[in-house]
């Protein structure tokens, strides 16, 4: 039992964190709300240059989980999970996707709409028959997402089967796991923002962070983060080592990480008060991403039911 990441894994995480801290400030996330594709000018290219987008060809989920956590922390408005984690390892000819030259997105039957389909070149589709690769596909726009950077569509089309049912299940699990990691990052970000704010903001002559009610709100969010993270890392290990219980582990991770992010969002907003309720203030960018991702790739209820089927049988 050695529940720790390797120096290489940590160094990869740090490198991506540095890149995102430079290239993906909140202003870039906000810009994606109004630009044409809901994406970024630079982040995608830089991630491609750095080899991140193709990393899953050589690296395991365990190597990527911390990177995805950082993508959540910075609310990167790009299909990082869909493209990098799910699609790239499945593509028969992944080279152009691995560099980011083309964009791949995903669509799983019964799992809600597809994000970023309007700027996608290929779609990896999870169906009851297995994984299907759509190179020609039609998209129909859905009403606006509450997270303005996520352009939602339904996707249809037909193509070649590139994976069997087990590959499909595994692809979905990798997507759910990657999303859980992003939710952990979002939780951390909202907590960091709020801690800074309540230390600084004064009312009644003192920082509002000195009030016990504020302290307890944020302590609860911190507790949720503390106990979500190990389940996410454990699920990454299980996926990487083909543990027979990997799907249940992923579901635990997604359910707990989603609930932690929703709790952190609620606490962050309440501790900010009216300023956090302002569209101009950046908290809402992270909060709405948390809402969207907690419901995407199966919400907590869906995943709890899946855990139930594993442990109550």
């Amino acid at each position, binding site marked *: 039992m050695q529940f720790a990441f390797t120096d290489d894994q940590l160094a990869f995480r740090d490198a991506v964190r540095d890149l995102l801290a430079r290239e993906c400030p909140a202003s870039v996330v906000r810009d994606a709300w109004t630009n044409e594709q809901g994406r970024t000018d630079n982040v995608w290219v830089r991630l491609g240059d750095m080899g991140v987008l193709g990393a899953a060809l050589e690296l395991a989920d365990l190597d990527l989980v911390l990177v995805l956590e950082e993508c959540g922390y910075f609310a990167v408005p790009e299909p990082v999970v869909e493209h990098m984690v799910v699609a790239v390892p499945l593509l028969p000819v992944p080279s152009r996707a691995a560099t980011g030259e083309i964009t791949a997105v995903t669509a799983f039957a019964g799992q*809600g709409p597809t994000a970023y389909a309007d700027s996608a070149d290929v779609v990896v589709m999870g169906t009851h028959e297995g994984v299907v690769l759509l190179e020609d596909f039609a998209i129909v726009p859905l009403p606006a997402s509450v997270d303005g950077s996520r352009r939602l569509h339904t996707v249809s089309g037909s193509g070649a089967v590139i994976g069997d049912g087990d590959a499909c299940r595994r692809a979905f699990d990798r997507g759910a796991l990657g999303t859980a990691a992003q939710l952990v990052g979002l939780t951390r970000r909202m907590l960091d923002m709020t801690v800074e704010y309540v230390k600084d903001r004064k009312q009644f002559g003192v920082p*509002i962070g000195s009030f016990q009610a504020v302290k307890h709100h944020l302590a609860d969010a911190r507790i949720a983060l503390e106990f979500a993270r190990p389940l996410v890392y454990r699920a990454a290990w299980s996926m990487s080592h083909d543990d027979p219980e990997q799907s249940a582990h992923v579901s635990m991770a997604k359910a707990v990480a989603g609930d932690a992010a929703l709790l952190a969002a609620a606490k962050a907003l*309440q501790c900010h008060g009216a300023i956090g*309720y*302002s569209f101009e203030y950046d908290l809402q960018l992270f909060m709405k991403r948390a809402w969207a991702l907690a419901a*995407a790739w199966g919400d907590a209820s869906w995943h709890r039911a899946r855990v139930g089927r594993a442990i109550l049988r």
Partner: protein
Amino acid sequence: MDLTFTAEEEAFRAECRAWLEANVPRGLGSGDTRDGFAAHLEWERALFEARFAVVSWPKEYGGRGASPMEWLIFEEEYYRAGGPQRVTQNGIFLLAPTVFEFGTQEQRDRILPRMAAAEELWCQGWSEPNAGSDLAGIQSKAVRDDTGGGWRLSGQKTWTTRGAFCTHLFGLFRSDLDAESHRGLTYFLVPLAATGVTVRGFGRLDGDEGFAEVFLDDVFVSDADVLGEVHQGWGVAMATTSSERGLTLRSPGRFTATATRLIELWRTRADPNDARLRDAVVQAWMDAEAYRWQTFLTVTRMRDGEQLGAESSLTKVFWSDLDVRMHEVALELLGADAEHDESGWMKGYQFALSGPIYAGTNEIQRNVIAERVLGLPRK
């Protein structure tokens, strides 16, 4: 005890229902955008024409002299018929009761009819960048102008709901610069067209321009625009918040209507055998009922002459938490479709999230309950 409505009340309900069912506009969007606000004003004027804008006001000001119980009935019917959140509410529900209680006859005659007719549109100017939960921190100043027979206001108000679309602001300003905390404030009525006023709208959580910053730079207001006594603004502002009228901002009808819509949504979206979501929907309904009956109990007590005090804090916490909870259940029923919901639940959720924050955060309200209802020590 009699938990039935009188024949008069039932007749009033029937009249409200008939008119509202025939007249409530369909598909009216948010009132927190410039275009939406204009569309809402059409509706407000229709309400006024039919004498439904301010049913509880005296007839001479455009109302019907409705009793609090009739007002609750109107509200139930209003939300039952799908009536929208009212863009005039801060004037009608927050300013008007104060004008009735503290205003001069001249002020009543000048302000109230135009407010009822939605000709003059009032926003609240209490919060400032450094005075949110702690209104005692108000820094905007009122300096005496004896020459002009009035005051000169300077400072900045913010989080002013629909300030960018309103014509007038009511607010608290520090008139005695030597006084601290809640003392030395005066309640002013400010035309936003006055020289020196700059209004900048900004987005609420959902992006609609429902907030504004109001900058005041040496704005002249006459003595006729002081409401109540000079330097007594805090008392004037607070007097009506826990009075009979203090309950009017959040009538049970709104939450009963939301609970009813939640049941509809459950019918269309849920597996009827899923006891978890069923229980959550039933709990929402029971809580909405509890709020309704607690209100009837309260209105009866007031009619019997009881003064209500800090109890309004119990109500504030309950309805605001309930509103959030009901919307959370709805979003769960919608699942992954919640993200792109157009039916109003996601927008309503974002609106509901303001409930535990505005008009005194729920943390402040719980302090008030503990200290003033339960008698726990302040320090």
